[in-house]
């Protein structure tokens, strides 16, 4: 029999070391995988992790890292707050889609009005849409004890249907020759979310992601609500005795993570994506879960993890172009990363002991 026995206290050193070990193990295991399917493992790893930063086209790909990482960081920051409290929002993808739709709805309803306040109102609508979509699992859990994991996940599929309906129905571009998809917001100056400083890639979503990192850091380490959240995650009963209302926490966490995911959706729909289509959701909401855990649910860790995941996306594209590496390998890579992280995590928090079966 193999038993897992909790260790007495986990050192801070290991807390930081495990994600690094997981990245290293992913490189090694990924390299073995590449070698088995007939690619040069060293060249593949270099193309994925090095070339986007320092390769021949790095002046283009470096800013793109920010563009790709911003929504991941924004969503993961919100998710991590809930995860710390043991509240599992798995449906950020749905909140992202709904936020994108509600935000875009403001612009499409007012088209072709040009006004400085349009974009801020869109951001508010995106936040509100994501928040409302997150409140559905929160209220169902508080009122009926429904699992927020299942409800939030299932609502992703509802959100995807709504996106398809919008793209084919109410939001279809009247000048789009009957094809699905809304007007392109990139071509609507007051509603567009363009690059703010030339050459940096940074749009408002990047700014928002940076602010989210700062705000969640403040919340978790300096604010009493953060203390309650952490307490509820570590010792729910003790937290209750200390006067923490679990229902308030559920609503707060799902509302916050929903709102941030909704904002991410709005920044993408008005920027890199440009329009509401049936394929509005591209998996940021799910990848953000990996980012949150890879970043140890810590704001700074999430920042780094988001950039690392973005690197694997962009490096994966380069590896396809220069080495004809199949696209699926990037997904395998990201999966391995989470797998190794959770594995090493388990080993830092538990000891493996052999005991004789009774």
């Amino acid at each position, binding site marked *: 029999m193999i038993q897992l026995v909790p260790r007495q206290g986990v050192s801070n050193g290991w807390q930081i070391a495990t994600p690094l070990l997981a990245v290293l193990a992913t490189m090694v295991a990924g390299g073995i995988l590449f070698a088995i399917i007939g690619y040069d493992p060293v060249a593949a790893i270099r193309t994925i992790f090095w070339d986007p930063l320092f390769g021949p086209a790095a*002046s*283009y790909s470096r800013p793109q890292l920010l563009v*790709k990482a911003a929504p991941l960081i924004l969503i993961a920051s919100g998710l991590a707050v809930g995860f710390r409290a043991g509240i599992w929002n798995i449906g950020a993808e749905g909140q992202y889609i709904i936020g994108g739709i509600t935000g875009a709805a403001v612009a499409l309803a007012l088209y072709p009005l040009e006004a400085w306040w349009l974009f801020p109102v869109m951001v508010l609508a995106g936040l509100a849409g994501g928040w409302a979509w997150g409140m559905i699992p929160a209220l169902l859990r508080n009122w009926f004890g429904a699992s927020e994991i299942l409800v939030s996940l299932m609502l992703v599929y509802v959100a995807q249907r709504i996106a*398809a309906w919008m793209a084919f129905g109410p939001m279809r571009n009247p000048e789009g020759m*009957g*094809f699905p998809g809304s007007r392109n917001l990139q071509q609507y100056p007051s509603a567009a979310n363009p690059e703010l400083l030339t*050459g940096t890639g940074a749009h408002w979503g990047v700014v928002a992601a940076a602010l989210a990192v700062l705000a969640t850091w403040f919340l978790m380490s300096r604010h009493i609500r953060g203390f309650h959240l952490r307490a509820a995650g570590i010792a729910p009963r003790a937290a209750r005795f200390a006067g923490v209302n679990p229902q308030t926490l559920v609503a707060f966490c799902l509302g916050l993570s929903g709102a941030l995911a909704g904002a991410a959706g709005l920044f993408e729909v008005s920027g890199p994506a440009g329009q509401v289509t049936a*394929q509005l959701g591209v998996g940021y909401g799910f990848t953000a879960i990996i980012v949150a855990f890879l970043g140890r649910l810590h704001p700074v860790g999430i920042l780094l993890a988001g950039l690392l995941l973005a690197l694997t996306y*962009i490096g994966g594209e380069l590896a396809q172009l220069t080495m004809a590496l199949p696209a*699926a390998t990037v997904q395998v890579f990201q999966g391995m990363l989470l797998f190794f992280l959770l594995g090493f995590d388990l080993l830092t928090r538990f000891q493996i002991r052999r005991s004789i079966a009774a």
Partner: protein
Amino acid sequence: MQRRTLLASASALMMALAVPAMAQDEPLKVGFIYVGPVSDGGWTYQHDLGRQAVEEEFGDRVETTYLESVPEGVDAERALTQLALAGNDVIYATSFGYMDAVMNVAAKFPDIRFEHNTGYKRAENVGTYDGRFYEGRAVTGTIAGRMTETNKIGYIATFPIPEVIQGINSAYIHAKKVNPDVEMRVVWAYSWFDPAKEADAANALMAEGVDVILQHTNSTAPLAQLQQAGKYGFGQASDMSSFAPAPRISSVYNNWGAHYVKSVGRILDGTWEPEAIWGGIGDGIVAIGEITEAVPADVKAEAEALRASIAAGEYHPFTGPLNKADGTGWLAEGETASDEELQSMNFFVEGIDAQIPQ
């Protein structure tokens, strides 16, 4: 995204690439961007066969690369830019949703030619290409009309867009022509590829008494259901010959190689122009798969004669007299539909007892 830095890095890259060899010795670099994996057995697979046809035809004179599984939306513009920065001379974008991204990237790289599949936006360096799939549906519709015993045929449709509506109308018109008692049932799958949903759609149609099914969706799931029930269907996008001789009694498949070879040839000899190419059976882009022995010889001969007359341009599948489903007149005796009418088609012809979702 910044035009100046982009151009700077692009031209630096071009110079780096151009130093070793110039002009004729340098192979033409041909890039493809795919929405699915090359192994999807349908849409992307057929495009990749086209890419291979280019390699076979031109050998050392070309060098092809592709990016697969690039979702429409936030990633498209970056992926296209990566293809451009990798030094491709021509880029084929093989999904409708890449349209605005192609236009953005093409504006930044005026020396690179782009061709966008199924779209309608063009520029100095952007052409479009598409297939007249309704021509193929005329042939399979004829076979369906002859083969049905219950006089009920079914159509698994994807999305209510002109291309799909053309296909439904064309299949119905030609089934009706050979079998005046035929009725058509339409199910909307709202997906291009969703095996579970397509199987459900096939079963729902069969439950209504349908015994021959045409599909616009790209998976083989309906054929698997038809096989169990002992009924007939057709391959779509790809030949799906593994289900021959029955239930797959013929197919309409996309032979993009016919276009790619022509287009790359024109670039090589310097005669390429940004065109709106809409090719049919006669151009080789739309192909009819083998009509199997499950189909009686006279029906097969009839279908092949129809194919030949369409290919020769002697017969247009939309030839009057034809009325719209609401009873209003459309085409007078002997009149044929214009391309403009077809490309914005949003009505069923008289006799189809179904609604187009709005």
